[in-house]
């Protein structure tokens, strides 16, 4: 197990380093940072002065290693726009994003797992078709469109729920519904597939032969085996939701990490964009690592292979 852990950890570190190098390089290639800081009207001399003041005249390799060593110590630099420490900015915005991501994942699991189970148990029935229809709808509908429809129906017409801000739990209802539709289809399909496989397995036939009740067969014998890949997917989905809520946060004015990323890209605030990419990739890799380890712990075949 330890050997497996060390191997996965090594791969995870390599991924984080690679992402940081690529994002650093791409951001530098996307335009002249000193020019963006100085503004459109700045003269060449003024741009040069800004370049020196912010240390942008140093070789790229030096700039990267300076940033990377500071990042490892928890210092992600300062925002070029507000001069605030980037770490503080990210922490202040992360809370909303984490709440939204966790709620969305919980809502997706709460709906998708039972649906998947019923779709498998009553396969090829109207329940199965309706569940698959919902999955197709969730996969096909752009979330910004769905968000606007929810705003119009529940915010503008019915006036049941607030449509912007993060002051109360009510503010999270519509964004949670929107975001959960992004991950619900995969969880539902995976649960259905896993359940169908489990229900056809010999140990389930044995359970039926023993005269166990359907509830015990479905939820005690079949589901625990079918749910394993869902655990992995959920961990990865959480990472995806943390980084993929840019549009939903913007539409519902939640002002979390997603909207910070959007604003920072718009304002060419490169240290913030760089750090958000780094933090999100770190979280994503960490969650993937944790799910790998859980799977390896549960299923010995994984660590032995």
């Amino acid at each position: 197990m330890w050997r497996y852990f060390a191997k996965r950890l090594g791969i995870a570190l390599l991924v984080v380093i690679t992402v940081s190098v690529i994002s650093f390089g791409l951001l530098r290639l996307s335009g002249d940072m000193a020019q963006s800081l100085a503004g459109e009207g700045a003269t060449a001399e003024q741009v040069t002065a800004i370049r020196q003041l912010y240390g942008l005249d140093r070789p790229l390799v030096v700039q990267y290693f300076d940033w990377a060593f500071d990042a490892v110590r928890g210092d992600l630099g300062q925002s070029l726009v507000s001069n605030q420490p980037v770490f503080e900015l990210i922490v202040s915005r992360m809370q909303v994003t984490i709440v939204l991501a966790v709620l969305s994942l919980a809502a997706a699991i709460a709906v998708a797992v039972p649906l998947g189970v019923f779709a498998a148990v009553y396969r090829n029935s109207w329940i199965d078709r309706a569940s698959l229809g919902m999955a197709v709808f969730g996969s096909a509908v752009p979330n910004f469109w769905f968000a606007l429809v929810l705003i119009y129906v529940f915010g503008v017409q019915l006036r049941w729920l607030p449509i912007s801000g993060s002051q109360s739990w009510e503010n999270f209802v519509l964004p949670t519904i929107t975001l959960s539709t992004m991950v619900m289809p995969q969880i539902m399909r995976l649960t259905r597939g896993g359940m169908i496989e489990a229900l056809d397995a010999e140990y389930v036939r044995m359970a039926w032969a023993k005269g166990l009740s359907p509830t015990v067969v479905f939820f005690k014998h079949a589901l625990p085996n079918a749910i394993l890949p869902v655990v992995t997917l959920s961990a990865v989905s959480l990472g995806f939701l943390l980084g993929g809520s840019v549009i939903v946060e913007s539409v519902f004015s939640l002002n979390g990490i997603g909207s910070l990323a959007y604003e920072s890209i718009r304002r060419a605030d490169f240290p913030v964009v760089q750090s958000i990419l780094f933090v999100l990739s770190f979280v994503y890799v960490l969650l993937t690592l944790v799910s790998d380890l859980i799977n390896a712990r549960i299923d010995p075949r994984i660590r032995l292979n």
Partner: protein
Amino acid sequence: MNVWFTRLVAAGAVVLASWPAVAGIKDGTLTVALDSPVEAVDIYMGPGAETAMTTSAVFNPLVAYDAKAKTYVGVIAKSWSQIDPETMEFKLEPGLTFQDGSVLDAEDVAYTINFISNPETKFRLKSRFAFFAGAEKVDDLTVRVKTRGPYPMLMARMIGVPVYPSDKHSALGADYASWGRAPIGSGPYKVVKFNESTGIEMERWDGYKLGPAPAFKRIVFKPLPDAQTQIAEMMIGNIDVMMAKSPDQVAALTANPRIVATPISDMNFQYMYLDAVGHSGLSVFKDERVRAAVFHAVDRDAIRKSIVAGGAGKTGVAHAMARLCFPFQVGCPDGGTPQAYDPAKARALLKEAGLADGFDLKVSTWGSSRPIAEAVVGYLRAVGIRASVDVLTLGAYRKKQVEGGLQALVSNYVYGGLPDTGAVVDFFFSSSDRDYFGDKRLFDLTKEANTTLDEKKRGDLFRETLDIVEKQAFILPITTDPVVVIHSADVKVDAATRGNILFARFSFFESYGKTPPMLGWAK
């Protein structure tokens, strides 16, 4: 997305029009939508429209500009005089205080200017203040501001220099970026709650002496980055004021009689220029006839009416510009007749220049000018020029510009609140990396205007400069870019406010039941 949602909103607006009024000023609180969160109420640290709007509510500059009288008026400053070509002396109003009760004096003015001109101080767009050599206190109510050489735009620049209390601000040391989260100013509102994510709450400051008492007891600035969400919040009455982004939004929202659109002429405009030097390898624009043909091909009126918010209908205050400046600005010469829309003439000029079969052209653009560039490309194609749009970011566009890669550019010019023609002339003709014109006379004239303190002489220099620009078809001013304020019907907005929108944006809220100041914080 926009078209679909606009239709949806239009339908909804009609439905809502018959509903009882929900919108309205509740308990004297005005709620204003911000396009993005404000990280600090500090215009130096975060230059941008939202920061300028909030900063101008809390702080005062030394002077403001009265666009009607075309003159500067004192705010914190009572009077001023030019001591020598590089020194301006300001006498301050006596008896002024900051919101914490501390006295506002010359020390605070000198400190603020020395802070922003300190080479070690880090903030964005610092180059705007590169002209300052420093400031010194003469006595409690007298301060001398020094510039690096004669600087005729000093007064215009001073509009955008809010004064900070020296003791409180300097106490922050290297943590000066945190100032804007708990600021203390001398303006009509004080910040009572600051949260970058949820917004800013301000309360009327009863000690405000530099103008009429503010109309609203409280102002809440709410960050709503998505335009569609702003529209929805406006329709259900959760916000009282927002800025329109397109004519569609104006039309959709004003279908509700409880929502009103008031356009404000701003000092921004859209323009186009061509590579008259041949830097990019495309040499056709060395020929003045080809440049004129391109400009004749563009229907500026149609672009303004169909694309620009505030360009048509009841809210139509945008206009096709005659010059690169606005008549109410200092030094803007009258006259000016840019190439009129005449596709037949455009084709004839192209034929005359031996380009009857057209040529390939990349029209570069960035930011908010993209729809204008797309329309321009359509008009150029109509006369046989095989044009396409080249969309860039600011950094990429400037890099391309400096490297001489632009064949044609459609962009917008933002005066940034400077009511002085010198700003635009300096922008286009003082830097060699922007020279796509190849006319040395333009640069000589600009150099002279940049150091001439005599207003009459400056005006003559600007006239000569802009006449050359027009005759040689160097730059086509396409349209002004007004701000259209969407607001609930019980908020009165002063439509005459114009010019320094960064500061005026706030002043029109003052007009609620009162006679508003013309511009900024003019008394």
